[in-house]
């Protein structure tokens, strides 16, 4: 329950891990249950890089020694691996295919098909991608439909190559297999579980 | 008769539990049991609770037996529910049973074996005559000491037979031996590896394994077992802390181990040879250990090349149903109210019943005392 004191040079994680993990998880659950809904995680922590507060909070809430994670190898995130190892104890993997989670920056993502999209009998064994992008508003409009969405929702995250959404559609054509996406920017998130059908709006 | 609701309030629960406490204590003119007495004098019950509770802690097991009024399955449940909250530090080194301080060791396969036969503290060959002297407490029984100490290392039956190729190679461990399957943290998965199977059997209900082993002996999946060796004694447990990098002894536990040997006539792929079934339990429990070894061997039909035909050879059947905490909970959950489902069934059966009578209809036949049918015929 107590604050975990980080060693020198490492920023702290949650002040109160039990309650902040629960708080973060519930908002992620809300996001997953209502794909496309923009949610403020309201995380209060000093993430080891800029613009990744939400992504870091999700990592603290969900990762541990059972969840290998892949990280985008960008110089601005140099301290992230050590931060995650200390606070979560999660193994960092080089090969995207070995990862249960990935924390990636939108401009430094491996191709989607390099990640594990599950087994037909165990589709839950697929990867969850936490994607950090510049903003969740102001980009090209995407029209969403599927479970969790009453009629349709529209999102407009920035930084994505339109071809990425083709890859996502390709991945989702294999449903029940598929990769679950959580888009983040600063403290905000939008979830796109594999059940969400995505179309680019003209 | 007044209608008494089965809906119970908080007070009913509290009163019931106080009554339970009173019943546990029994006649207060009789001295209360101390946990140490249970630990020392009901030690085989303690052993069973430790094993099926998956937690080697005689004090805790004794406490659970006291709290459960001697209901061993309930005590196992208490230990499990406590164990699940304990922090896990890591995985110990494999036990080296040849280095056991042997208190009992017998082989039914050879008249004499290296290390010798040691009868030890056994019920075997006791005449099952009630000892009325035990009505009274008396001076402690003292057994004579052996003249020669038992050898420090007593080879297992496998190593005794190793120089002949009559015995199969010991079954390979999981490739990733650092992280054995752990059913307390992972759900059952099939096909089950050896680690998962042995863990499930070790935690499994003694009565269930005993009956399966017995059924198998009677022909329902016979493996023609023979007790190669059974041994019981204390053994050191070693653990390698991350920061030290070498194993240190963290304590000593008593275990019973059984190597069951089955003959196998051979197949196109394998020469005729003897095959193994393996059993190991905490404490002293030969009935469970032997049953476990027989069932382990029966479940190995695939690697040995036998055609399964009986329940004891069906790993889904055996492993899914051996856990008495799961089984006891689910059987007894039928005590919980089911009146929502029953109302649904009642409606359905009443409708069918009514239609059945209408179909058979002369019309005058439906005078019956059964209210269900009476109503249906209205």
């Amino acid at each position, binding site marked *: 329950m107590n604050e975990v004191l980080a060693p020198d040079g490492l920023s702290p994680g949650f002040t109160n891990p039990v309650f902040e993990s*629960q708080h973060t*998880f519930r908002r992620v*659950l809300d996001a*997953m*249950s*209502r794909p496309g809904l923009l949610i403020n995680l309201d995380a209060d922590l000093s993430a080891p890089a800029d613009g990744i507060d939400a992504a870091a909070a999700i990592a603290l809430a969900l990762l541990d020694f*059972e969840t290998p994670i892949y990280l985008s190898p960008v110089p601005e995130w140099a301290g992230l691996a050590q931060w995650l190892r200390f606070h979560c104890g999660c193994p960092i993997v080089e090969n995207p295919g070995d990862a249960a989670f990935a924390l990636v920056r939108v401009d430094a993502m491996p191709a989607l098909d390099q990640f594990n999209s599950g087994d*037909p*009998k165990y*589709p*839950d064994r*697929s990867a*969850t991608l936490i994607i950090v992008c510049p903003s969740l508003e102001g980009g090209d409009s995407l029209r969403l439909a599927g*479970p*969790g969405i*009453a009629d349709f929702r529209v999102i407009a995250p920035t930084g994505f190559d339109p071809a990425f959404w083709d890859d996502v559609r390709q991945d989702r054509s294999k449903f*029940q297999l*598929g990769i*679950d996406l959580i888009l983040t920017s600063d403290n905000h998130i939008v979830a796109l*579980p*594999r*059940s969400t059908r995505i179309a680019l709006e003209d | *008769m*007044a209608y008494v*609701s*089965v*809906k*119970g*309030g*908080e007070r*009913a*629960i509290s009163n019931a539990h106080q009554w339970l406490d009173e019943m546990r204590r029994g006649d207060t003119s009789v001295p209360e049991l101390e*946990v140490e007495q249970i*630990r020392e004098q009901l030690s085989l019950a303690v052993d069973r609770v430790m094993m099926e509770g998956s937690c080697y802690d005689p*004090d*805790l097991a*004794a406490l659970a037996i006291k709290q459960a009024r001697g209901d061993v399955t309930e005590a196992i*449940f208490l230990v499990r*529910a*406590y164990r*699940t909250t304990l922090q896990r530090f890591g995985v110990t080194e494999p036990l080296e049973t040849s280095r056991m301080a042997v208190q009992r060791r017998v082989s039914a396969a050879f008249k004499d074996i290296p290390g010798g036969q040691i009868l030890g503290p056994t019920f075997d060959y006791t005449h099952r005559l009630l000892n009325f002297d035990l009505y009274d407490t008396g001076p402690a029984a003292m057994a004579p000491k052996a003249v020669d100490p038992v050898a420090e290392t007593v080879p297992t039956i496998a190593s005794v037979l190793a120089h002949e190729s009559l015995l199969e190679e010991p079954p390979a461990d999981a490739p990733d031996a650092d992280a054995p399957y752990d059913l307390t*943290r992972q*759900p059952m998965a*099939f096909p089950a590896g050896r680690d998962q199977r042995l863990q499930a059997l070790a935690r499994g209900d003694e009565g269930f394994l005993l009956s399966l082993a017995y059924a198998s002996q009677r022909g329902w999946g016979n493996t023609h077992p023979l007790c190669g060796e059974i041994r019981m004694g204390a053994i050191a447990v070693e653990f390698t802390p991350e920061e030290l990098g070498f194993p240190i002894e963290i304590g000593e536990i008593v275990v019973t181990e059984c190597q069951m040997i089955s003959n196998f006539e051979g197949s196109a792929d394998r020469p005729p040879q003897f095959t193994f079934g393996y059993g190991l339990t905490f404490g002293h429990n030969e009935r469970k250990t032997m049953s476990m070894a027989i069932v382990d061997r029966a479940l190995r039909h695939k690697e040995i090349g036998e055609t399964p035909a009986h329940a004891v050879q069906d790993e889904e059947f055996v492993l899914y149903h051996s856990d008495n*905490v799961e089984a*006891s*909970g*689910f*059987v007894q*959950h039928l005590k*919980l109210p*089911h*009146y*929502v*489902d029953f*109302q*649904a*069934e009642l409606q*359905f059966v009443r409708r069918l019943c009514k239609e059945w009578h209408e179909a058979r209809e002369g019309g005058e036949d439906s005078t019956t005392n059964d209210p269900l049918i009476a*109503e249906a015929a209205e």
Partner: protein
Amino acid sequence: MNAVTNRKLNGAYNHAYLDEQTKRMIRRAILKAVAIPGYQVPFGSREMPVPYGWGTGGIQITASIIGQDDVYKCIDQGADDTTNAVSIRRFFAKVADVATTETTEKATIIQTRHRVPEAPLKEGQIMVYQVPQPEPLRGLEPRETETRAMHAYEEYGLQYLSLYESVSAFGRIAGGAGYPVLVDERYLMSPSPIPKFDNPKLHQSEALHLFGAGREKRIYAVPPHTDVRSLDFEDYPFEVQHFDEVCALCGCSESYKDEVILDDEGNRMFVCSDSSYCTDRRNAGHAGPLAGHVLGQDDPDPASLEDAQ
């Protein structure tokens, strides 16, 4: 001083009982369950301080999602004052220090065994179901290895065959509770043994529905606004139970009813199974033919329910 008296089981349990690693593992399973509606996610179910079959799956889900801001309701057979519901509600009031309620509208988390409340669920509410047997096909095929393959390849012929056989035998589709549904036209799912009367409440619901089977070690989910279709045939359409009797206490003709035996002569009355719904109606002035009758005369102990709050 010996080890026995020295040992202190001092109740130093974590918030909501489960340790944080277990909660994370369950939370990850819940997120996958939501992402694959109707699919049963295996999880490392822990031994709980109540027996398997008595709500261990629902309790583990609640313990993993509940926070200090939540308002918790727990029902069994629709009623808040059923013994096991009282027991579980007390557990969470104690270990999670959370507010409890009997009013459906006020609850953020509603744990249930065998019923969906009558009052419409709202956005933001989470239903947590205690599930004895998560596998809808288990009664037709005992092997997990087989049923898992059937789900993987969407081979549900066995289920339809069974429904068809019941039509041949009974002239209708049998099954009163635990009636199988297809979620988002993909996964066959058991809605847990709720009466089929409640099945339509899952379809395009405003709330999130989480299902936990502790003994069978499975979690599954129906997100809000998801298609949930009860299986049927064109010429034998799905239909829910209907009660000819109104609630003896509140006069409701729409609700699911408990049948209460009044004496040894076969006299009975029907009352709403959803106790909170019935109370609300009575407070609003509705009355049935036996209004004022006290259920459970030997222990009219509603005040004690508030202890937990």
